[in-house]
């Protein structure tokens, strides 16, 4: 056969130029426009909260723990949402609460993912006794109810914000570990990981460069959910008096401090609770949408 025939075959069969690439940003924008209403709403809520949290000092009429009036003043007048049990402005504390609660929850979740994610991938990649040791340790931690365990640890180590963050992060990282390990197990058996091992790559490269990028979608989705749980845990701990300590404004303790108002038919204590609920719902909408996109699920008609 002639050479000319050969080259035509090769060009057509194997060397066809791939379709033009689209830029990441424009794809993201297009996806966003196609997103369902719930996801858009969720995004809006999150953006709103982040905005409020970032610009709290500018947005608030008073200082965070400044006593500006008498106790339990009604809505309206100088205090849009009234004052709390010590005479501090409710709106101001709500806004600062966003900053504190969201900020601490975010840091905690990041820390939990750092610990759990790295340990999970390592367990999957190294297997053997490392996997056994880590997995059993996690089993032990998970065997004790998280809230009770964290109450116990907080009473031992004191209730400063750093200890709060570390304790909740460690307890929450067990869930992240399980997920990261499970999804990594599917990746570490792939040939490209074997190729990297045979190249002589260290465990650091395999963890971060080979495995991590491939397990990002489920981890990001889990991040959203974990964030909600951490957030709720902090609020719950604060409500019980072992979380964020006064005078720092935070939604959990705000509910507790003003709980008595409920008896008088005043909805003020429900506002911080509502703020928590709204954010949780928003984050979940976005996570749902993201999971749907990355898992390749299609709406069946």
């Amino acid at each position, binding site marked *: 056969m002639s050479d000319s025939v050969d080259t035509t075959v090769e060009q057509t*069969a194997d060397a066809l130029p791939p379709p033009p690439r689209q830029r990441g940003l424009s794809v993201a924008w297009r996806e966003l426009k196609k997103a369902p209403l719930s996801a858009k709403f969720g995004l809006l809520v999150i953006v709103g909260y982040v905005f409020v949290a970032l610009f709290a000092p500018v947005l608030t009429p008073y200082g965070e723990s400044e006593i500006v009036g008498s106790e339990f003043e009604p809505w309206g007048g100088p205090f849009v949402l009234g004052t709390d049990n010590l005479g501090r402005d409710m709106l101001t504390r709500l806004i600062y609460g966003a900053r504190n609660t969201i900020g601490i929850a975010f840091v905690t979740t990041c820390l939990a993912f750092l610990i759990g994610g790295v340990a999970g991938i390592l367990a999957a990649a190294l297997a053997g006794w490392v996997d056994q040791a880590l997995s059993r340790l996690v089993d032990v931690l998970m065997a004790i109810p998280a809230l009770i365990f964290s109450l116990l640890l907080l009473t031992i180590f004191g209730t400063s914000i750093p200890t709060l963050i570390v304790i909740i992060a460690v307890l929450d990282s067990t869930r992240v570990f399980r997920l990261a390990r499970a999804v990594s197990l599917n990746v570490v058996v792939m*040939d*490209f990981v074997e190729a990297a*091992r*045979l*190249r*002589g790559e260290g465990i650091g490269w395999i963890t971060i460069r080979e495995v991590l990028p491939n397990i990002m979608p489920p981890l990001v989705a889990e991040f959203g959910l974990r964030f909600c749980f951490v957030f709720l845990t902090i609020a719950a701990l604060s409500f019980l008096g072992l979380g964020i300590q006064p005078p720092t404004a935070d939604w959990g303790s705000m509910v507790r401090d003003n709980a008595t108002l409920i008896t008088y038919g005043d909805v003020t204590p429900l506002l911080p609770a509502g703020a928590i609920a709204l954010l949780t719902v928003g984050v979940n909408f976005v996570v749902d949408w993201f999971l749907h996109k990355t898992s390749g699920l299609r709406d069946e008609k």
Partner: protein
Amino acid sequence: MKNNTSGGSKGDILLEMRGLRIEGQADETWQPIIKGIDIVLHRGEVLGLIGESGAGKSTAGLAAMGFARPGCRISGGSIVFDGMDLMAASEEERRKLRGSRIAYVAQSAAASFNPAHKLIDQFTELPVKHGKSSRNAAEADAKDLYKRLLLPDPDNIGYRYPHQVSGGQLQRAMTAMALACRPDLIIFDEPTTALDVTTQIEVLVTIRDIVTQFNTAAIYITHDLAVVAQMADRIMVLRYGELVEEADTDTMMAHPKEKYTKTLWAVRTFKKQATGTYTDSAPLVRVEHVTAAYGDIPVLYDISFDVHPGQTVAVVGESGSGKSTAARVITGLLPPKEGRVLVHDKPLPGDYRKRTKDQLRHAQMIYQMADTAVNPRHRIREIIGRPLSFYLGMKGDQLENRIRELLNLIELDPDQFIDRFPGELSGGQKQRICIARALAAEPDFIICDEVTSALDQIVAEGILKLLDRLQRELNLAYMFITHDLATVRAISDEVVVMLQGRIVEHGPCAEMFQPPHHEYTDLLLSSVPEMDPNWLDGLMERRRREGMMESASTS
């Protein structure tokens, strides 16, 4: 067996598709996949659909059932099956047809069976559901069909789960299932592509017998011309969703008209240039009396062979013969129980973790599945660049230039490909990237593990030519693991034939293809389909006479 479907004698038109157009959805727009094809099929006729991957063969095959894959739609033309217009029929009517009168046999039987149910339960589901027979009758029928399809222990095999039978047996069980309702038409979509040559023969023979026994019409989809020559009465060549050529098998094999058809026919003609003997040079890699096991299960027994610089050693055998395990021992993924591997007469540590960077660099590996061999989240730049910076400490412009050089070497345009992700590449292109990654380490020895078996023939041919050129230019030694003897014949200098973890025959390529052979080598060699349409009959006749393969005797 009497044909118990709705009458009709051989020669009547069973299926008629006119001006068939199918579109697939890509990025919000509908792209044509099939661009107006006419397919007419008569009762008892076997039609072969061939073409490279992406030609629309499977899509056309599925359309014969009035079915389009999710994300695809039939946008034009007519499909008439035995007088019934499938385009006009309701989904309910079409569903009744499927399985009972039109059946489909998929490429991967392993993926098409539900692993949680026994074979016979999956067999009986359809006839019982369609009200064709009772559960007991269906079970009896299943056993009968298993017997006809020459499955071992037909009375009991149905009570096994899919993972408890071999790939070839599963494919036959799938064919039996397709026959459960005695359909008028069966669509075979690459039923033997995933099988070894020796198993492929068994499946081909049974499929052909069944088709003649039941006077069933069939559409046989494949990219293997030699196979289609054995099976089909008539062949249609498809390309880019269009018909290239259509003719009777004999005519098509003897006198292909179109240029494209001729290139398809010529694909298997690639032959490496004859090279000298290597016995005088010192061996590059020497495998000495290696015995290996997975836990307590022994897989390799006393394996020894040499690879000389610039030489290709093909390791052949069916799946489970231990050829990939031999590669794992050489790469150090599986330390041998006994024996050792020497490179340049220096023994390598058995465990890859104990080898130096340089020892690792010298032996590279190319995998069967290019999809999983490159990290889907890395750009081509990083995939090829990593060995360069890792082994050779390159960075900046030097690194960039070398990546571009390598891309040129594997015949891909650097400007187009360097910033892409593997997902944006075709199978052949991905395999080229894997080759570039191996070359980046500047090895002198490359293990190629079934590198072409996942690609269709034209693309595979390109890869083989590339590997051959690189070998000559860079004096590389290859260990080429494959079960495809046509590939072996094309590229190897020396052949090692393995069976159940042992080397049964070993010698220069030219000698291996000349008799006398070891009995197993002979079985392997004679099982490679040839382009002659009468080859299968001839082979079966010969084997029957020799009584070599029990399963070749037809019922």
